[in-house]
């Protein structure tokens, strides 16, 4: 995929695929093109070149900031999007999502009164209403405390376990190592690496052995530095 903003090339021919049930972490420094890539995959941004293929065209999109109506209740938000997704049984779909998010008891609360973590769970649940084969999450854990983050990843891992391909972007390198089965490293719009965390560490080991033995973030920074970023 290629995307240009005027003179600047935000994506320079990035190409990748994800298997069913696979968790792919998209990582890279600021301005690497992570959000642009996910926006194109979600269909909210058109690429200048390239195509996106997904089973039945189903892609669930969870933007970085919660895209919810704060003056509607949890249930009203889910019901609205279930209807817009043309689910055959919208109320049944809402019930499923409430069970999945564990927010059944708070279904009648206004979203504005929920914590950031709970808002993010609703945000993700809305992304799942279309029963997508692929779920895209743009920095899903931003603003969450450690306990909320742990619950969120447990929830996402459960989705992947049921066969949903999950592609997420993150700034948290440790989180990418821990939850991403595959890492896609972007820098200045280029796809630099596509593989597991262990494969990335292995690549660093040949260039900077000391960095490869440290934490994953050190290895990642070394990897970028050796490629001029």
């Amino acid at each position, binding site marked *: 995929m290629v995307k240009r903003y005027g003179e600047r090339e935000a994506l320079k021919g990035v190409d990748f695929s994800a298997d069913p049930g696979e968790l792919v972490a998209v990582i890279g420094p600021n301005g690497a093109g992570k959000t642009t890539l996910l926006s194109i995959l*979600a269909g909210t941004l058109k690429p200048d070149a390239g195509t996106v293929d997904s089973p039945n065209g189903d892609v669930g999109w969870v933007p970085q900031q919660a895209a919810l109506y704060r003056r509607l209740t949890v249930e009203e938000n889910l019901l609205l999007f279930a209807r817009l997704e043309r689910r055959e049984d919208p109320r049944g779909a809402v019930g499923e999502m409430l069970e999945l998010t564990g927010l059944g008891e708070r279904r009648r609360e206004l979203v504005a009164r929920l914590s950031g973590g709970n808002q993010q769970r609703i945000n993700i649940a809305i992304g799942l209403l279309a029963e997508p084969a692929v779920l895209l999450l743009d920095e899903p854990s931003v603003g969450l405390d450690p306990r909320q983050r742990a619950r969120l990843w447990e929830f996402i891992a459960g989705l992947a376990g049921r066969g949903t391909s999950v592609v997420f972007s993150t700034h948290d390198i440790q989180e990418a190592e821990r939850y991403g089965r595959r890492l896609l490293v972007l820098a200045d719009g280029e796809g630099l690496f596509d593989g597991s965390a262990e494969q990335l560490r292995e690549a660093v080991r040949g260039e900077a052995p000391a960095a490869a033995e440290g934490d994953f973030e050190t290895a990642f920074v070394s990897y970028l530095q050796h490629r001029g970023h």
Partner: protein
Amino acid sequence: MRWLLLKDLTILRRSPLQAVLLVAYPILIALLIGFAISREPGKPRVALLDQIPPGARVAGGNGKLPAVGVDQRICREVECVDVGSRDEAATKVREGDLLAALILPADLIDRLNSLSTLNPETPEVEVLVNEENPLKAQAVDDRITALLARANLFIARQIAKEGGRYLNLVVDGGGFDVLGQSVEILGLRETASILESLRPDVPAARRPELDRVIRFATLARDNLDIASPLIDRLAQPIAVDKHSVSAPTPPLEVFAIAVAATLTLTFVTLLLVAGSLALEREENTFARLTGGLVSRPALLAEKIGLGVAVGLLVTLLMLAGVQIFVSLDWSRFGLWLAAILLGAAGFGAAGAALGAAARDVRAVSLLAFMVSLPIALLSLVPSGAVGAGLYDVIRVLTALFPFKPALEAMTSALDSAGPGIGGPLLHLALLSAAYAALARIALRRFATI
């Protein structure tokens, strides 16, 4: 689209301030307009200090004219408040209790009487005003000038009428009281007849002189005959024969209701549509909605539809409120609907363009007020009130915004005397299409700002 509409109405219901404003605003406007147009225009309160001695009369020849009653005349036009002194009058005017004070000095009648002598003195009345701001100064000045002009006209007519009576005496003769004694005036007509009858008895040598006297009496009689209506005309030499070159205009109260209804429609529809669209961006839902759930044109149509529905309801509520005070012609309801629906569509499309151009709800609310209020005021500027060049600029500006055509359509819908409704409705339809296209273009960058 109906689910989005339902969602927006739910959000509206959950915003107590907005909901209260939407209901309270038309009720308040209806009450204000209703009270204003269902009562007689209030007379300005003016202090009157009458220092003219009782029984003073304007003199006419050796007699006196009937009481002119200047004070009574003035008090028909304004609410006169009696004051005891000039200082009291000045204090009441300064403190804003009264619009002005009118002081009729003791020598007013003497000065009026001096106008027919060799030493005329100009009669003057004193007016005290409080010109606390330029607007009030102009208004008070206009009011007092008009008031005194009417009083002057009344006095001039009284004098002319009395003068005419004396002229008739000179021409036709009759009885006349001088110092309580009745005097018989012969009159020019009778004089000429008597002289004619005496002519045969006058010696021939003296007849040419008698003929000169007879000719004078006849000429004077004939010319003084036309002097009487001439004197009467002098009181008001120029009469007004007014012809309107424009279409018949509806009554003032109908125009006031149309202005109120259009203002209600403007603010409710414009703010609601602009705010509702900006909210989609503020809540980050725009990208989610347009990422495959709803097309952008459908989203725009839903927002404009929301504005039209609420605008229609609120404006009808306002008109129903006005109905308590003034009888409206409900047989024209179909035309009301057409005017409100197309007006709301115009304002809704303009609101969508503003909402798509602005970043958040607060910014768009401010923008909507900043755009609509001056345009609404400019739309009320009549031709001739400003220079021709400036009026052309105002005409172009107001034609680009839906307020003026909406006001024209509403006026036409409310009363048959208004201008035709077809032109304004077509104008509104064109503006709706143009603003919807602008909103569509602005939405392209909406999600990426």
